[in-house]
């Protein structure tokens, strides 16, 4: 059987989260059970509507019982605007699962998960997955930040995981006031090579995490983005430069990279 499937799914549920953000549950998707955190799907927006390529979305959650998958997205340009018009019952073509996904750490060490804005979905799924795999919830720290309170999504769902959760906003309208990297520095004791970092979010956040890892000699994994015409490695369009020289295809060798691997 093929590793990657292309299937017409149905919108089982749609929620408007405000701030131009939406939550979609799509099903059935036959590969649901094999999806790993950090992987993504490639979606054909409803009618085409002038949008030529598919658009990539990280998996936010899965429900293996009913073979459904969930995504969270923010309207950014044409493709996401189209997708935001999807209604319950509409058909949506999904290709996946794509990308490498996160590599799970040793159960002994502490994981520091840092997400900003629309980088949260794959990290929530990572944390949930770890809990399900029997990781100690006390050894999982989740730092989730946004510009302002309204930008934070699905807080109650994240809280339910029972992990150490530190929420921050740039303007202090909710939780810790400051950037995610500051929130980590100020709220987490003993950053060192014994912890591992996981991050996804805006470039500023990723660069800060990069520097933190360098400074504290920590290892970690970051999930990156690039415009993705094909999503499966055949167009050579989604490349980023590697520190060791040459390029990497974010859709295939990524989207998750070891900290330091890619030039940000």
């Amino acid at each position, binding site marked *: 059987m*093929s*590793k*990657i499937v*292309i299937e017409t799914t149905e919108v089982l549920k749609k929620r408007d989260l405000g701030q131009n953000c939406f939550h979609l549950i799509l099903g059935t998707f036959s590969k649901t059970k094999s999806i790993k955190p950090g992987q993504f799907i490639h979606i*054909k927006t409803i009618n085409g509507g*002038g*949008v*030529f*390529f*598919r658009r990539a979305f990280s998996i936010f959650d899965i429900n293996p019982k009913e073979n459904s998958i969930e995504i969270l997205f923010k309207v950014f340009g044409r493709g996401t605007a189209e997708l935001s018009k999807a209604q319950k019952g509409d058909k949506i073509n999904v*290709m996946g699962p794509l990308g490498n996904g996160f590599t799970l750490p040793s159960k002994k060490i502490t994981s520091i998960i840092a997400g900003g804005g629309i980088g949260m979905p794959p990290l929530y799924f990572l944390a949930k997955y770890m809990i399900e795999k029997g990781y100690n919830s006390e050894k999982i720290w989740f730092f989730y930040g946004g510009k302002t309170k309204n930008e934070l999504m699905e807080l109650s769902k994240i809280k339910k995981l029972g992990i150490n959760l530190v929420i921050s906003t740039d303007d202090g309208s909710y939780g810790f006031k400051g950037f995610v990297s500051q929130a980590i520095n100020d709220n987490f004791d003993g950053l060192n090579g014994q912890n591992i970092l996981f991050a996804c979010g805006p470039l500023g956040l990723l660069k800060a995490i990069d520097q933190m890892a360098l400074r504290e000699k920590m290892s970690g994994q970051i999930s990156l983005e*690039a*415009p993705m*015409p*094909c999503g*499966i*490695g*055949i*167009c*050579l*369009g989604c*490349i*980023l*430069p590697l520190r060791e020289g*040459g*390029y990497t295809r974010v859709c*295939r060798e990524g989207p998750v990279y070891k900290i330091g691997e890619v030039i940000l």
Partner: protein
Amino acid sequence: MTPDLSIEIAGMKFNNPILTASGTCGYGEELADVFDLSHIGGIVTKSITVKPREGHPPPRTAETDSGMLNAIGLANVGVDRFIAEKLRFLEKFDTRVIVNVAGSTTQEYVDICSRLADYPRADMVELNFSCPNVQHGMAVATNPSLAENTVKEVTRVFSRPVIAKLSPNVTDITEIARACENGGASALSLINTLVGMAVDIETFRPRLTNNTGGLSGPAIKPVALAMVHKVYKAVRIPLIGIGGISNYRDVVEFFLCGARAVQIGTALFVQPDTPIQIIKDLKNYLSKNKFKNINEIVGQLRIY
């Protein structure tokens, strides 16, 4: 009885006429995760050069209306790694392997093809005379005698069929088509991408670091069809139609205009299993219209 989709080009049989286009299917490895490569008629691999190339810096693709621009810059593993790794992978499948070759001099075309000559599973070579993103490519594409000579030299070292791939960015594509035929090409494939450009109005920057790129996808299909139609009347060797094909109706249009096979390019990015769907739909179309064999419709356009 299911209709016969098999075709022959220069004496070589293809299970069906649906190939994947150079530069849009890598060396087959990724598509093999989506469908069984033995189901398609053939795969045309990414242009290979003498040495490996990393290609242009990003961004090197951009979305346009019903199409895309690309200036990948011939990123490829080079002929040595191609033979050692990629060709070996492709050998496993019951499909034709056409190796697309790009050179910056006639000698480079010859060098690459003479290396490939020793590997019979490189069934044919396709000479990329038309890549708009590197210098010499464009020169061969627009210079009939240079093209003719390059084909001739390549046929000296490569005894299996040689295909010349033509550029649409010329005043009269039949000139170069005839030159390639005279040079000994077994078939012609057309079209490559149209030169195009897009600009980011926030940064005032071109959307590609190469400034210009190649336009492909459904947007260019009418141009490709007109060129296939024109070349069909000008040469006797078989034509392989390329340009914006995304469904069986497009394939039938190209066949009616004179193509004996087609290549699917950009459509693979949007829907990688397009070739499989097309093969299924083509069979239905032929049955419904009582054709036993796809060759029956080649060139059957009823012009006004």
